């Protein structure tokens, strides 16, 4: 077989593989959207669920998902950036550092249910936070830290050494070089990592069942005092997320339209993740441009 034929075959093979991936993805999304989008309405995404009747919504669950995401990122992103900077810029090649890297790998392959059970024992019981958004946010931070740390470290390592030397040669300290040159340049990569983690937070159910809980108390969306028990912002209330809700009504939903609600919620979940991806990318690009142009 000539090199040219081989080349053509390889190209065709790659197209077929890409085609399969796209078909599977389009099929999955199409299925979820075709079944789910007809269920969506303003009333569906704003009202609380009904237990025995038809016509309930997923308003509080949707809010819980977003709130949990924000809290998780607030906890995990600063830690991940700190750890990533350390591993990329300060850590020397040493057996302790190698151990840390192995531990991060191990942590990233922990099943989410195990993280959930650890969260239950530590945050819910030992720390005494009960089933709460805060317990859930910490469990999910733990779950996502390895991924985030690795992404931050990689993004920083991808910045060429010449940029660091240029910063040092201009009389910037190591810290100034990192914060004013390396981090802005690494930002698009870091944002991509945060998006990946966000998708995992949004779609995670197993780690939340035992931490954030499977119920949502009656909350009053006009009460924004985080200390009040009926406020949506209270981090110490239980909070069932959209993904947990889907799991729950599929198992034990007794409302007559459980299947329809589950379809609608699934579509909503995917739309939310897509929305979050696009806005994060937009914000990342915008920040990058702004730092360059001000």
């Amino acid at each position, binding site marked *: 077989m000539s090199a040219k034929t081989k080349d053509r075959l390889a190209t065709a093979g790659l197209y077929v593989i890409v085609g399969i991936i796209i078909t599977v993805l389009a099929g999955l999304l199409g299925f979820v959207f075709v079944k789910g989008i007809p269920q969506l309405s303003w009333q569906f995404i704003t009202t609380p669920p009904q237990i025995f009747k038809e016509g309930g919504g997923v308003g509080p669950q949707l809010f819980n998902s977003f709130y949990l995401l924000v809290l998780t990122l607030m906890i995990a992103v600063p830690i991940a950036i700190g750890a990533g900077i350390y591993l990329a810029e300060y850590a020397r090649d040493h057996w302790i550092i190698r151990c840390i890297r192995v531990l991060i790998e191990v942590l990233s392959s922990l099943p989410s249910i195990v993280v959930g059970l650890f969260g239950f024992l530590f945050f819910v019981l030992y720390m005494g936070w009960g089933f709460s958004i805060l317990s859930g946010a910490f469990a999910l931070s733990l779950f996502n830290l390895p991924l985030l740390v690795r992404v931050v470290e990689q993004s920083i390592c991808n910045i060429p050494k010449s940029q660091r030397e240029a910063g040092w*040669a201009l009389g910037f300290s190591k810290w100034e070089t990192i914060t004013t040159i390396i981090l802005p340049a690494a930002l698009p990569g870091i944002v991509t990592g945060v998006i990946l983690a966000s998708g995992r937070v949004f779609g995670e159910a197993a780690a939340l069942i035992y931490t954030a809980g499977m119920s949502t108390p009656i909350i009053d969306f006009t009460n924004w005092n985080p200390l009040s028990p009926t406020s949506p912002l209270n981090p110490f209330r239980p909070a069932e997320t959209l993904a947990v809700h889907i799991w729950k009504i599929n198992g034990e939903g007794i409302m007559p339209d459980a299947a329809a609600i589950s379809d609608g919620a699934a579509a909503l979940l995917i739309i939310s993740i897509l929305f979050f991806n696009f806005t994060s990318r937009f914000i990342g690009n915008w920040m990058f441009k702004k730092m360059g142009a001000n």
Partner: protein
Amino acid sequence: MNVVESIERSVIQTEDLQFYYNTHHALKNINLKFEEKKITALIGPSGCGKSTFLRTMNRMNDLIPGVRTEGAIWIGNENITEPSIDPVELRKKVGMVFQHASVFPFSIYENIAYGPRTHGERNKKVLDEIVEENLRAAALWDEVKDHLDHPATGLSGGQQQRLTIARTLATKPEILLMDEPTSALDPISTAKVEDLIRTLKERYTIIIVTHNMQQAARISDFTAFFLNGEVKEYGQTATLFTNPLFSETKDYIAGKFG
């Protein structure tokens, strides 16, 4: 090594400078003086230590693990190899331009304003002036004045190199170290950067590492020939190129090795 008798005012002087990468003795007994507001070229085959030597003068080598410096480098009346010298402060005084123009992924304006701002200058008007002054000094102003807000990465290679020179000038150095600043450029851009280096001599003491013999001959006043971590020969460029003392110098200049 012949001592250059004609040097009147030296701004940098090295005294028995030794440099080691772990056990590798990379610089041996370097005793050099550099005259104020002149261009000194460092030439020699790859691996001879000329870049390493350049990097000892702004202590860029400090950032490599396992290195050791002995001897002294006097800049003014300070020995900059002393641990008490803050390398960050030193590098403001001793600027460096690299082989590959590493512009920051920001706007042209921001590339220049970055140093002064990080070093504490917040006044927008002052920063505007610094940007204009240094872009003019780097002979780049006329080419970029209408799009200072454009990303610097969109400039040509030669423009990027002049931008990094402007950026270095903005931190107000007294000495400029250049590590093969034109080796990645085309001949036209090289000519522009060389013109620039020649005009910069009026205000700065310049030490330039180059692999290009013609370039060393064209722009430098003094030349030091490095071989195997030692200074084999040092003298006025005209003398060293036309009448070298050592056969190695002659062979290297003639292109017989290296």
